[in-house]
């Protein structure tokens, strides 16, 4: 068990981060190369000002028409993304491990806050799953990929929650947790989670078109 633990928290972490970083660079570079080769008619209109104008306005909750018309989803989406990103980065247990390895540390959340945020992520995933099952339009759209990324996002939080509360077998769960975290990191460039890499560019592009050519807001 200890051997497996050492493996998943050691070499496997390096591997998953390597896949994430090099995979992301590869995806971004190859996408940009493709855009230069085939989408000159789009690239030509990219504009810094209108890109940031669009990104900025879409970051504000309830500003865009889409956010306004889907209020519940909007709240859940913001809570989900904030907790999904902030919890692992600001979790004291994670920071302690990094401090022990590399001697660097940063501000952390209290354990009880992190616990609540974990529950929020899990609840948000349950909400998303419910929409996929019971909301007609979303059910029609849902594919295997959507279930895959929902599972990938939920598992580290479910296992982390169970391990933290020492429910079931701690040793098995903590290994499962680290494994799930590794899978999520490595999956970013090669699943639909790649919206983390590309959405900023698609947003910037439509912002540039609307701002520069169509002279209209896109939110």
């Amino acid at each position: 068990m200890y051997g497996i633990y050492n493996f998943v928290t050691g070499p496997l972490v390096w591997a998953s981060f390597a896949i994430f970083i090099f995979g992301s660079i590869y995806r971004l570079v190859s996408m940009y190369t493709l855009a230069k080769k085939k989408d000159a008619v789009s690239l030509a209109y990219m504009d810094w000002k209108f890109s940031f104008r669009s990104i900025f306005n879409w970051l504000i909750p309830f500003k865009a028409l889409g956010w306004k018309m889907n209020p519940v989803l909007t709240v859940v989406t913001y809570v989900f993304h904030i907790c999904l990103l902030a919890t692992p980065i600001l979790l004291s247990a994670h920071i302690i491990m990094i401090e022990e390895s590399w001697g660097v540390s940063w501000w952390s959340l209290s354990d009880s806050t992190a616990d609540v945020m974990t529950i929020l992520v899990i609840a948000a995933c349950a909400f998303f799953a419910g929409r996929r099952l019971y909301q007609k339009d979303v059910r029609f759209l849902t594919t295997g990929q959507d279930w895959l990324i929902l599972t990938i996002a939920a598992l580290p939080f479910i296992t982390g929650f169970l391990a933290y509360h020492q429910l079931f077998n701690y040793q098995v769960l903590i290994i499962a947790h680290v494994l799930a975290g590794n899978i999520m990191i490595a999956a970013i460039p090669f699943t639909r989670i790649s919206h983390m890499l590309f959405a900023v560019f698609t947003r910037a592009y439509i912002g540039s078109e609307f701002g520069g050519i169509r002279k209209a807001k896109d939110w």
Partner: protein
Amino acid sequence: MGIQDRLIEDVGLREGVSRLTEDKIQKTVNAVFQGETGARLKAYAEICLRCGMCTEACHFYLSHDKDPTYAPAAKVKQTIGTLLANGGRVSPDQIYNMAQIAYSECNLCRRCVHFCPVGIDTAYMMITMRRICHKLGVTPQYIQDTAHSHSATFNQMWVKDDEWTDTLQWQEEEARDEFPDLRIPLDKEGADVYYSVIAPEPKFRTQLIYQAAAILHTAKIDWTMPAEPGWDNSDMCMFTGDFEMMGRLKRKHFESAQKLKVKRIVMGECGHAFRSIYDVGNRWAGWKHYPVPVVHSVEFFWELLTQGKIKLVSKYPGPVTLQDPCNIVRGRGLGDKLREVIRILVDGEIVETASNREHNLCCSAGGGVINCGPPFKNARVAACKAKADQLRATGVKTIIAPCHNCHGGLDDTVHKYELGMEIKFLGDIIYQCMERPEA
């Protein structure tokens, strides 16, 4: 529920798919994917999170009892999405379904852009689907006829060269009863304004040419119209997916203006032609922006009215509501100017529809949908129910719509939903209310 339950028989689509095999389809689809699309399509297809946020954007969805197969992302899934998932190999019958969705169930209005957090442009996916259909020879008969007309005559309505000048002279003659020294100057080099129209104007809306001539004459504008092809700024080829012809049309239009060394082009009250000129056709022809300055008549009328070149003897009795045409408001930010013009012209308030300006609901006629003709008319008007509800809720009797397609679409809508409203172009109102020059 689903496209197979609402198929509409169209001879163009039926004959088109009868000539196809799965091999032919796959070859053509992949030629388009590999030859004409790139990172944009790839990124859109990959990162659409299937969240359904765009669903509520679409008037087709809103007007069809929230049938999920009409949601924007659902239409992508049933067309381009299916082609991508199957490596381009689908049956001819599936192409029929996809063509019906792409040509007749999406107005390319881009309202859904305002709903998508990752900024996916569904209209681009639909127009790529139309491009594939065009290359497969599967296009609705009526709109294909207009595209053929573009190819043969450089105008949309089979107007022959002598008929064009004849029509202009006829309108000039008519107008001279009212304005004795009015001219429609043809081919005048170096004029300030080159006035361009869409071919339905000489074909069956000649009063619009009359009105435009009256307004330009009254405002003492130095203007001209071309005697030769290039005068039609419309572009059905953009909507059928015939991009080669779209490029030729725009080049002809701009070169006709360049040949006459005019200062700028003023376009009539049309939406799609404006889109073709600033957004789509110009790019295919290789111009990043248009090579000759172009203004839409909303902007032009705004100039005439604010600079006092046109004075009013009366105001049009309001209150009124207005239709924001997608291609000039969401597409070109003319919402404010349009309202300023209406405030000058109308005595009474503007009662806005619930969705307005860049968030407007489409008239359901644009994007080439009305041009698909009678087979699709009932489905098109049915998709305008949400818009009809918003129009009825304004409680007013006049809709101002500065776009031909909006006019046609709303005309059918007002009739079908018994709204009892009249639809006006800005030109109608200006012509009616302006101070005439002394004879």
